[in-house]
Structure formats: C-alpha cells, structure tokens
C-alpha cells in the first residue's frame, strides 16, 4: 500500500484572532529589508491537563535531582572527600557513590555518553522528542521562568496587554520583580553547579567570604548568565537555532514515530462552530486557536510535524479542554503517528508498529554497547600496574659480569584502603630484586601503596652471570594484594649482542 502524506501547509488564515508567533514573525519580515528576521514574542497560555501535570512533576523531579545531589554525603575512609558525587579536578578524581574513577578510565564516561545517545535515538524513534519536551534543561528552566513570568504579569492576555502599555509603576514593579526572581533562579543554577566540583558544605562558606577558587566564581557567573539569557530571553530560539538535535531528529523519526499530532482526518474541514449546530459534514476543529496560544514554541501544530515542535504535549491538554467543553471526544490532538492519520484518512485501521527495522537497529546497538560497558565495569580492578623499562642505560654490567636492569613500576591503588603489594618477577632465572631503601632479595619485594594513590617504585633486577641464556628474556611482573592480581610484561635486556669482543 502506498501512503501519501500531505505535508503542505494550509494557507494562513486572514483576519483577526490569535495567529501563531511564527506566522507573525513571517509577516513582520519585510522582503529585502534587514538581514535578520525579528523575533515575535511568544506568550504561552497556561493549560491544565495530564501532560501539563506530568511536566510539573518532571520539573520538580529533575530540578530536585540537580539541586540535592551535591549535598548527599557518602562516607569514605581517610582524608578522601565524603561527597557522594564529586568531580575533583584538582585531585583528578571522579567520585560517584561507591566508586572512584581516575582520568585514565574516562572511557567509562565515553561509554555512558554513547549509551545515552543510543537510548535517545531509540526513544525518539519510538515516541518522538520526549527528551526535548520534558527533560531537556532548556525546556525545564524555560518552563520555570514562564511560571515566574505568569506569577508577576499574569497569563497570556494580561502579559500581552502589559507589554503594549506605556511604562507605569504597575508595569515597572512587575517587570523588575520578574527579572529579579529570574536572576535569583539563574544564580541558584550556577551556584548549584559549582557544588559538583568542590565539597559543597565547605564551598558554601568559602564562596560568600570570597575565599573560594576563582573557577567557582567564574563558573557560577557564566551559568548565571547563560541561564538568565537562555531561559529568560532566548527560550525557543535556543531550540530552533542553536541546538543541533532538531536537525538530527529528522533522521530518527519516521511515519511510525509517536509525535504530537493534529488528527486532521478528524479535524478537517475546520471552522467556527455555533452551539447547537450540526457536526455532520465538518471536522471537529473549531479553529479556536487554543493549541496555538498554548504552544511555548510559537507554532501551529495543525501545520503537521515541524522542526520547532518539542513534543511537549501542552497543545493536547489545551485541545482536550475545548473538546470537553464542546462535547466532542478528546484527542483531536494526541500522541499519534503520521502513518495512523494517513491510514484513517483512507478508511483503514491504524496500527502502531513499535517494532521496526529502525528501532531494532537502535535497540541492538544499545544492547551491545551496554553489554560491553557492563562487562568492562565488571572486569575493572581497583589496582593497576605499569612497568617502564629504563631506556638509558638499557642494562648495567656489574663487576662480576652480572647484568642489572632498572624498571620503574607505577602501581595504582584505586581502592579505599591501604594495600601492600607482593612484587614477583618471573622469566629471569635466579633474579635478585632490589628497590631503594630495602635490602636486595632473591624472593619477592613488598610495596605499600596508600589508597587513592599511584606510587612509582624503582625496581632493579639482577640476572646471575652464570645463566646459560644470554639472550634478552621476558620479565613478567606480577603484583598480588589479597585476592587481587595484576600482571605486566616487560623485557630483561642482557646486552648479549653488545658484548665487547676484546673481553
């Protein structure tokens, strides 16, 4: 079956009444005049309903996580920080509850980001841009800012009226109050951010007496500025012009993705409706524009799926309210697929197909990456060993002809307790080990490494002169501490090829 989806925009309705902000902006731009199109201000109207309630709940949840996380304490031994989540740039450590990651393990973070990206692909292919509509910080903070704006200036109509008024005391205190609260929230945002990088209870004291690091003040100032500008002034422009995701999403979505959809099969032909009029021969859309005035992105959802739409569902709530009032079934605007709309228009049954080749690919990729990550994490050891063989001199010949090679062992203890390591060398027969400050031994060396530290230990291996094999030998360093073992391979250079022929 060939499905034809009509994506042509319906012509702009002429006449009075609210029109989408995008349409107003298009009209405002005079042809050939000016390089940039001016922004038409958007005054989203408050709606009530299921999706709005979900958005409020997610707003509280995400902001709660953001503000509370740095204050969670997690007991760690010794002088280690007891902040559950801490990115310690100075000490080059990332603490996350029960684990600590070192800079060389940053691939765990990379893997997590790859997983997040694939999960985003999968969710978008299935349910559209849920991330944009509900959990993106830009959306959440903008929502919060609009809430504040509404508290000071009233809902849509009051705000439009206020903006059109000349300056007065009433207008001034409302505007000043709004911006003051916005700046307060912005400062709170930047202020909370820096707690992730320093011990929060300490920083909150040092910050106010001017004794915190300069980076804390600068980061706080930058985030205060960006929050205020992005959420207060730029809003939907950040999504439409700055963010790459609306462009990328085009490759993730298809006709079977759930998106906020105007069911034109049910709504058209639209037009004003008087109470008591017959519904036959016309669509359910009464052209009341409730969906348009509710949209925080300033678009008309009835134009079909479009770049600006963040899939937040506020127009669904707005429309449902109207449908109840005019006693028509809810869901003229709903989470639906383009495919379903087209199918219904043809009089066929609409089926939602979550399992498609696209979702299978994303799902499989996500499963593979997650599997590799979990495996890698399970294999992770809290101890690590690197052996650096001396390059100069490669070997030293002793007075009795014995050969002595120097190595630097870098032993990392990523655990939370002091560990004593048993250093064993195999591959060199009758090897004698020596480390500065200890007596030479035929057996193993013992090295103690403090928690959360890497210790560089010089180890010298002396091979006996009467060893038959004069060739270079493999030198295998084995470190044992409790039930943990790590191994590193190196070479014992005997200098066989360098023998002085005169000797």
């Amino acid at each position, binding site marked *: 079956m060939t499905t034809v989806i009509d994506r042509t925009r319906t012509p702009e309705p002429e006449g009075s009444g609210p029109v989408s902000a995008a349409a107003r902006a298009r009209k405002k731009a005079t042809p050939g005049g000016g390089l940039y199109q001016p922004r038409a201000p958007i005054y989203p109207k408050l709606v009530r309903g299921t999706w709005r309630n979900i958005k409020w709940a997610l707003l509280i949840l995400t902001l709660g996580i953001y503000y509370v996380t740095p204050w969670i304490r997690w007991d760690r031994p010794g002088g280690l920080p007891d902040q559950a989540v801490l990115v310690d740039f100075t000490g080059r450590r990332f603490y996350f509850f029960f684990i600590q990651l070192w800079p060389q393990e940053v691939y765990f973070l990379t893997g997590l980001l790859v997983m997040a990206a694939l999960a985003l692909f999968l969710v978008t292919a299935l349910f559209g841009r849920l991330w944009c509509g509900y959990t993106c910080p830009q959306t959440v903070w903008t929502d919060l800012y609009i809430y504040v704006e509404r508290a000071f200036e009233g809902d849509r109509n009051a705000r439009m009226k206020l903006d059109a008024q000349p300056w007065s005391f009433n207008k001034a205190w409302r505007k000043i109050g709004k911006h003051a609260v916005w700046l307060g929230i912005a400062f709170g945002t930047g202020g909370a951010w820096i707690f992730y990088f320093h011990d929060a209870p300490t920083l909150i004291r040092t910050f106010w007496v001017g004794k915190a690091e300069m980076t804390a003040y600068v980061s706080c100032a930058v985030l205060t500025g960006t929050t205020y500008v992005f959420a207060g002034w730029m809003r939907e422009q950040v999504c439409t012009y700055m963010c790459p995701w609306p462009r990328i999403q085009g490759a993730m979505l298809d006709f079977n993705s759930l998106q906020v959809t105007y069911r034109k099969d049910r709504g058209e032909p639209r037009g004003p409706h008087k109470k008591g009029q017959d519904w036959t021969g016309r669509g359910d859309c009464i052209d009341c524009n409730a969906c348009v005035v509710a949209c925080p992105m300033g678009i008309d959802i009835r134009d079909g799926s479009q770049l600006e739409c963040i899939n937040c569902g506020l127009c669904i709530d707005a429309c449902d309210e109207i449908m109840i009032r005019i006693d028509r079934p809810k869901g003229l605007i709903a989470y639906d697929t383009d495919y379903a709309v087209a199918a219904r228009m043809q009089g066929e049954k609409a089926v939602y197909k979550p399992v498609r080749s696209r979702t299978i690919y994303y799902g499989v990729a996500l499963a593979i990456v997650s599997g590799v990550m979990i495996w890698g994490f399970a294999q992770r050891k809290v101890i690590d060993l690197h052996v650096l063989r001396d390059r100069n001199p490669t070997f030293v010949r002793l*007075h009795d002809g014995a050969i*002595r090679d120097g190595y630097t062992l870098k032993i990392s203890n990523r655990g939370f307790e002091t560990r004593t390591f048993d250093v064993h060398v195999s591959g060199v027969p009758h090897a004698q080990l020596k480390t500065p*400050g200890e007596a030479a031994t035929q057996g193993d060396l013992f090295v103690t490494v403090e928690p959360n530290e890497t210790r560089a230990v010089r180890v010298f291996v002396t091979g006996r002169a009467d060893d038959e094999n004069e060739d270079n030998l493999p030198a295998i360093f084995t470190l044992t501490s409790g039930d943990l073992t790590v191994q590193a391979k190196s070479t014992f250079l005997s200098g066989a090829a360098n023998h*002085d022929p005169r000797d």
Partner: protein
Amino acid sequence: MSPRETDDVSGVETTGHEWDGIRELDNPLPRWWLWTWYLCIAVAIVYWVLMPAWPGLHGYTHGLLHMSDRAQVVRDLDALKTQRSAEGARLKNLSLEQIEADPKLQAYALAVGQSIFGDNCATCHGAGGTGGKGYPNLRDDVWLWGGTPEDIQHTIQVGIRSDNPQARASQMPAFGRDQLLPAEQINDLTEYVVALSHRPANAGAVGRAAPVFQANCAICHGPEGKGDQTKGAPNLTDADWLYGSARADIHGQIWNGRGGVMPTWEKRFDPETIKALAVYIHANAAGQ
C-alpha cells in the same frame, strides 16, 4: 563641501569616489562593528589606568595594579622555596638511610636528584649515569671512593682532585712518562695486570713483573691488586676498567698515570640538594 550625490538604485548617498563608473556607497558601519570599536577604546583606557602603559622621560607609568613581570618571577620563586621548605628541612635533618626508608621523602629526593643530575652531572657521567672512558659508571657496583650514601655525598661535596682543600686526592705516578720504571718493566707489568683480571697472559712476563708490582703498585692497589677505596685505587682483578681493558689501554695508564678531576659542588648546592643527589645516585646504583 561638494554636494552629496544619491545613488538611484539603493537610495544611499555616495562618497563621491568613482572608479570606472562604479561609485562607492556611503553606508554606515555595521552597528556591531561600531560598538566593538567603542568597547575596545574603553578597554584601552581601563588598561592604561591599571597597567604599565606609557613611557616617560624617567621610567614609565606604573598603573594602579603595579604589575611587574620581574616582581612576579621573584614572588613565584619565593613561593616555590616556601613550598619546598618542609621537604627541604626534612632532607637536611634526616640521615641518608632515613631518607631512603621513607617512601614519600625518597620519591621527593629522587625527583630533585634526577633534575640536578641531568643539569650538572650528566655532562660527564652521561644522562643515564653510565659514564664513559675516564668517567666512572655510577650505575654499577664498582666504586673508586666508596659507594655508600655517605661516601657518595662526600665525593659530591669535595670533589676529586679539585681545588677544595678536603678534596679526595690521589695521583697515580706516570711510571713511563716520568721514567720511574724502564719500558720493559712496564710491558711486563701490563701482562701482570691482565693476568690479575683472570685473562690469559705471558707467563714469563708475569713472573718478572711480580716483584715490581709489589714494590711499586701494591702500596695503593694492594698486594693482590684488589684496590683500596680510601686511596681511590681501583680493583685490578674485576671486569671494570675506567680507562679501558685492552692491553694498550692498561699500558697507557701505567705509562701516563691518568687521573680525572671532579669539581667540588658544595659551593654551588646547598646540603639538602647534595643529599638528594646522593640518594638519587645511590638508589640507581648497584652500589654498596
């Protein structure tokens, strides 16, 4: 002023400049450009007030911040000194054995020692400390003046045959050049020394040289040729040769009696640095 002309197409005034019939429009500068320019001027004025800016007849304007790179370097060096003072004091007060036994302090001493060695000692002893002909190898277990940490520390302090009155000094006579021994006896002695280090040698020459060795060489190198660290006399029975192991090298050494000079370092380094250097050299040597 000539009357301004207006371009018909754009309605913008022209500057009156014309090239081959093309006239330049007098469009205003873009706003963002103009404001950037004003901002630069404002920044420049603030800079003049705060920072050293203008030359004068007697010096220059210092600016309110009194910024000076030279003063900053002095401050940085002072800060570095303060930062190192705790470790430095411990190096000063503890014995070399105690320093080696403390992992943290040892690591600090090794780092200091490595840097000092690279800048000062590597010139003769090599970056790896393995020396060369005439320059002792500091990585092996053969030490002319002793290889304990204290011996090494003392050698660095006073030097060898240096101008320090306490310098380690000894001089092997130039038996050939100064005609202390006849040439045939020096040939015989060469064979004797080769034999001492367990290599095949002319038995007749060895026999003839034995009394000569005891009369002339044993006073420093010992009756068995095993050397004496109090006099800096090398052990002649091992495989290590400062001036080479071949017969010609040994003959040349008996003939000329060469002895190298190592400078005294106590005038240049403070005692902590010399201690750190001694720890570094001892830690890397297969010494005593």
